[in-house]
């Protein structure tokens, strides 16, 4: 299928560039593999040459006196010379052009040596043509040049110095070396054509592969797009579910809030009355804690009333009432109403930019997140339990508020649903705390996320942008200056 596509479509520029890369990779790989192959062949020829010399012509004789035949050292040392350096290059510089040219020269000289070691047998002369064919495995027609030059030089030199050994006559014609070199050139011609043709096929294969890769990338991009669309659809369904739950919750909250607000007001009035009567205007009676507790009761009743209001606001979707809101005091205020043994640290920098935020909603956000972390803290970690609220400025002018704990982390399946309304893992929880946080953050135009590492802890990050009005004001002031 892909082949059909590749054959019928024209490769674009990127595919051609990729094809070039693939072609070069394959060519280099081929050269390296062939270098290795020749390294083995050279060593094998060396062993073979020594075996021939030792078996066929071990000794030269003078009557009964024998001496090592010249073929033996020639096979060992001459053959070693023809093997060692090209093999060294094949192993240490595989794929380099100089390596294969040296190998080509060595391989052709091996033909000469083997011909001599085998007593000039006509069969050994086929080694020359076999070697040329073997060199064509490189698919680099340039290797035939040094190979052929070696053959020509060999015959020219021998014609000049030892004509009978090459041509069988002591007075060969001047052109005689061309007869031998001509047959080599004849084979060269075919092998050069074969090499060029093989390179073309290799390039065509590289183009086909590049096109297939290109199509595969397109398919992959489409798959990613489809996955993204599916995830968005899923998120949309979750949001719709959440919205429906919130609608139910809104009705319930409105009803309950309305019902609770009046009794709570009565409790607050009663508490105020009892406090006045007991304290009688004196804030340090017989027990100084009494006044303190009356103040706490009053403050918390107020907080309850506020939460009910907030819940009603949340259910009704109350927009934040923005005003310049320094974050650090908000965090201090939130910490003051969370009774806990866990160490709480306000690491919000003093010089953090002041954004226009709804102070009450931000206080509620911090309380909910810190309270959540404190309640999640296992008893076994209490000795080192710690919740840190910090913030860092964003280049855009906003900041990221982070609530980090070491409560042991949240499993992935819980983390993915943690901001859903009515979702809770606590036995006494309502599943509203983090949903309210998420809702408030969204109404501020912010984003909330949780990062967790099991066994370590979690970090809730709230990215709050600099509100547009403030940006516009700053821009105007800058323009005016």
């Amino acid at each position, binding site marked *: 299928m892909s082949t059909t596509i590749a054959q019928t479509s024209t490769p674009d520029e990127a595919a051609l560039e990729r094809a070039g890369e693939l072609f070069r990779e394959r060519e280099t790989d081929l050269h390296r593999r062939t270098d290795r192959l020749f390294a083995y062949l050279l060593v094998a020829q060396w062993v073979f040459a020594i075996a021939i010399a030792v078996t066929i012509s071990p000794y030269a004789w003078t009557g009964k006196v024998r001496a090592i035949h010249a073929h033996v050292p020639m096979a060992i040392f*001459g053959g070693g010379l023809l093997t060692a350096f090209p093999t060294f290059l094949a192993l240490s510089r595989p794929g380099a052009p*100089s390596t294969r040219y040296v190998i080509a020269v*060595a391989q052709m000289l091996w033909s000469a040596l083997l011909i001599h070691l085998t007593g000039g047998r006509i069969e050994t002369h086929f080694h020359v043509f076999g070697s040329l064919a073997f060199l064509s495995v490189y698919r680099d027609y340039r290797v035939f040049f040094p190979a052929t030059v070696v053959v020509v030089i060999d015959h020219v030199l021998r014609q000049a110095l030892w004509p009978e050994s090459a041509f069988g006559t002591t007075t060969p014609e001047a052109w005689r070396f061309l007869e031998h070199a001509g047959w080599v050139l004849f084979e060269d011609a075919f092998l050069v054509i074969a090499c060029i043709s093989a390179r073309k096929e290799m390039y065509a294969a590289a183009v086909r592969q590049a096109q297939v890769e290109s199509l595969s990338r397109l398919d992959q991009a489409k798959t990613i797009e489809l996955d993204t669309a599916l995830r968005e659809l899923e998120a949309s369904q979750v949001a719709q579910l959440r919205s429906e739950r919130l609608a139910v919750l809104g009705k319930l909250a409105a009803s309950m809030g309305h019902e609770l607000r009046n009794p709570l007001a009565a409790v607050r009035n009663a508490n105020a009355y009892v406090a006045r009567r007991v304290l009688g205007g004196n804030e340090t009676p017989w027990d100084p804690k009494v006044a303190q507790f009356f103040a706490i009761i009053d403050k918390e009743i107020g907080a309850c009333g506020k939460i009910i209001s907030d819940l009603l606001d949340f259910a009704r979707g109350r927009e934040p009432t923005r005003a310049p809101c320094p974050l650090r005091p908000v965090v201090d205020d939130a910490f003051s109403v969370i009774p806990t043994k866990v160490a709480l640290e306000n690491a919000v920098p003093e010089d953090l930019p002041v954004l226009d935020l709804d102070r009450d909603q931000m206080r509620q956000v911090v309380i909910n997140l810190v309270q959540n972390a404190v309640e999640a803290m296992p008893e076994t970690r209490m000795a080192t339990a710690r919740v840190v609220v910090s913030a860092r400025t964003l280049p855009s002018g906003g900041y990221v508020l982070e609530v980090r704990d070491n409560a042991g982390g949240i499993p992935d399946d819980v983390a993915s649903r943690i901001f859903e309304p009515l979702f809770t893992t606590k036995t006494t929880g309502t599943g509203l705390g983090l949903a309210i946080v998420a809702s408030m953050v969204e109404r501020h135009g912010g984003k909330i996320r949780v990062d967790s590492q099991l066994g370590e802890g979690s970090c809730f990050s709230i990215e709050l942008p600099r509100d547009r009005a403030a940006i516009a004001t700053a821009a105007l002031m800058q323009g005016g200056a």
Partner: protein
Amino acid sequence: MRFLVAWLHRHLVFAIAAWALLVGASLIALFEYKGRPGSDGHPSVAWPEAAGLERATDRPTLLMFIHPECPCTRASIEELALIVDRSDVRARALVVVMTSEAAAAPVSTATVDRARMLPGVEVVFDPGGVEAARFGAETSGHVLVFSPNGERLYTGGVTGSRGHQGDNFGRAQVLALLTTGAKGAAAAHVYGCALGNDT
């Protein structure tokens, strides 16, 4: 070792040139060895009276004196096979194998066995190299051709270089002699091991 590799890579052109020179020198040494002839000896111009070998009286007699162990002589034997095969005149061909004086049994080496297998070629043994000395041959592979009346028609080798088969001047001379009867003007060198005086 690592230093050597790095050095060779840094001076690659020099290394290749040095390698080429060494290889060239080795090949020249090989060619020089292969082209170095043995002693041409003092071949007798006529069939020696005291010769223990029998000369054919109806056709030429070809003698090849060989050292049984000489590896270079195998090429001479192959050339002899070619001469016997191609020549029109069927000469009486004798391969005279030098052996030790004390040799009790016929010598058997690859060269001798190959000579034995040649059709029309007779192998005889020459204990102590007596016949070789009579005929004046001193190098293995020395060929002498005599006419039926004992006149020497050819002396020399039948290979172009030491232990190397292929077209060569000596073989061409002998073939011409046994085919057309043309007697060559020059003798070819003999390439092979020295027969020695005390074989």
